[in-house]
């Protein structure tokens, strides 16, 4: 069984890798995947705290978050497809129409 310290550490590392990925990569799909990674890290934390306190709240939240993440991925990928269709690229550097 895992001590809460370990869980915290692992989830923190996963989260920071996710952030690094969002800030580093040029590919929109990889960015989306890193966002999913961050959500998973948070889920890990929830589950650990639920286990630690003996309630089901953390499990329920984690389950709901998974559902939200799925919906978000669906819409996000649809966006990526639409952008690709319009501009033939999904490099985020090219998407600067809001440039002021």
């Amino acid at each position, binding site marked *: 069984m895992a001590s809460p310290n370990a869980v915290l550490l692992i989830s923190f590392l996963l989260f920071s890798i996710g952030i690094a990925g*969002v800030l580093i990569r040029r590919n929109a799909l990889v960015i989306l995947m890193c966002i999913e990674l961050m959500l998973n890290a948070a889920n890990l934390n929830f589950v650990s705290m639920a286990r630690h306190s003996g309630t089901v709240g953390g499990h329920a939240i984690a389950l709901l978050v998974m559902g939200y993440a799925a919906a978000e991925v669906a819409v996000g990928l649809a966006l990526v497809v639409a952008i690709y269709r319009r501009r033939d690229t999904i490099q985020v550097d090219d998407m600067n129409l809001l440039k*002021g």
Partner: protein
Amino acid sequence: MESAMHAVSTPTSLLGLVVFLPLFGFIINGLTGRKLKNNKVVDLFALGTVGASFLISCVLFVKLIGMEEGVRSLHQSLWTWMTPGAAVVNGGVTHATIEWAYKFDPLSGAMALLVTGAGFLIHLFSAGYMGEERNDGRYYRFMAYMNLFVFSMLNLVLGANILMMFLGWEGVGLCSYLLIGFYFDKDFAAAAAKKAFVFNRVGDMGFMVGFFLLFMVAGSLDYDTLMGSFHGISALPVITLFGHTAAPAFWFNIIGVCLFLGACGKSAQIPLYVWLPDAMAGPTPVSALIHAATMVTSGLYMITRFNFIFVQAPLAMETVLVIGSLTAIFAASMGLAQYDIKKVLAYSTVSQLGYMFMGMGAGAFTAGMFHVFTHAFFKATLFLGSGAVIVACHHEQDMRNMGGLRKLMPITFASMLAATLAIAGIPPFSGFFSKDEILWRVFEQWYQGGTHAGSSLYLICWILGMLGAFMTAFYMMRLMVMTFFGEYRGAGNDPHHLAVASDPHGHDDHHEDHGHEDHHNGPKEVAWTMWLPVAILGVLAVVGGFLNLPLSLGGGEHFSKWLEPLLYREPAAAVHASNVEYGLMIFSGLVWAPFAMFLAWRFYGADAVWSTPKAFVTRFPRVFAWVHNKYFVDEGYQAGIIDPVVKGSVGLWKFDAGVIDGLVNLTAWLLRQGSGGFKRLQSGRVQNYAFLMFLGFLAIALWKYLA
């Protein structure tokens, strides 16, 4: 010194009407004239209000005659204008208030009669003279301004305190501007109006300083209070103001000189006279009313009103005397070389005003005021007559293109001849009794009954005055001969080539479509609305002298006696005339002036080709050029004062545009540069925004630990 001055006044309720009737005329004409387009209505209000003012003034004057000599004063206080509160003045603290009040006493009553009477006659003349404007839709404006002028002038003369006089002072300056610049679409008219206003303002500065000081010394601006308290003030050993202690005479000198500076501006004395000749750009009735009879005499009225100050201020009196005589001869010399009929009369006005100031400077206040009245009569006659001549000659103003009008305009000729004889000082016309009285008084100050005890300044001024009188008679006769005698030189009838190619739509012209068809008829006598006022004023110029027949000739000196209670001076010591007085009278009236007129007749009348003047001009071209160009005084002002000021202004403008605007622009530039830097944050890329969000999260998360 004894005087009959007092502070008692009888209240009356008609005075306000005298002043405010012309104001109503102005308001009604000004507001409705443009819409109604009915010249008869305009005439009714304009002439009616001034005429009614004149009638009421007559009624009040008769009432004044019926009162006792010591208490001859009517007043009416309409409301309290200003309540300054406590003011620290010479004697302590004063709580004087300033009323909107009028005072009808011998001096102001006579002036009110003159203003309303001459004003009415000139309004009547304008009804005929401004013929084209009647059809133009501009007539109502002219009459409205004239009414406003009469209102301001009445405020000036009837005001019961200095601030009322100042209100009228500024008002007549404004109306002068409005009326000179009546044809505001002509550049020279607008420039002349501006010049008049600016020079008036320079004088007004002196006037203001003068009456501020007077308030500091006396603690009040009200005439009755001033006249009552002046005895006490002049008896003080010293007066301390602004930390400086001096005898009262010192302060009176300063006040007198400052007030005289105001009079110089308004009454066109050296060095502020240059606006008056240019003011001839306005219509002729304006020149007659404002620049001959009324506005320019306001300076003299002011000096007579404050005679109690001037008499105590010998330096101020000398200044008045010297400037007056210099102006008299200087302007008369300029009148010798002018060809425009109105310009000759303008310089003549400046010169005659110099005579009036000369009289006041010598202590002869009644003689000076009497000359004001006689001058108003004959100068208004001359101006209105010249206006009639100008209209008859189809707006021709150059005398070289006139001539022979004696047979064509007999009534105008007769009136102007009477006025010319009056201004030349031929007895028994009015000018003799006023101008010669002034010259005699100046002479007497030097002569002192045979002892020659007076300062020789008076002698010099008397000589200058006599020379000026010679020139006056000469140029007036020249004007008459050139205009009325010989043959008419206009319309191409010029056998001796004396006419010049002048712009027939000259200075007094208004618009282009008046009747061209009557250009080919010769000049003929004008309508009754024009010759009647001229004739009336001409008759007054003839008989007016008998109001102040001097004692030496057996007369009663009514005018002088009328004004005497207001004067703070010694009663006349000489009660019997000396032979010197008679001798001078005969010399100047029967020898000196007629000789000048004879010379003018010789040069211009008997000699059809004007050979002597032409020879003079050819012999001395430089002299002629100097005199004809008014001694280049205007050019001197332009180069010496106006150009440096303009240069300074240009420099300041450059400073404003460069430095101050530059600072403002610099601020804007800095902001733009700053925002340009911030603009780069808006890359439009989501990942940059995500990065910034991360940074923000870091900052918030570590806030507690960083602090």
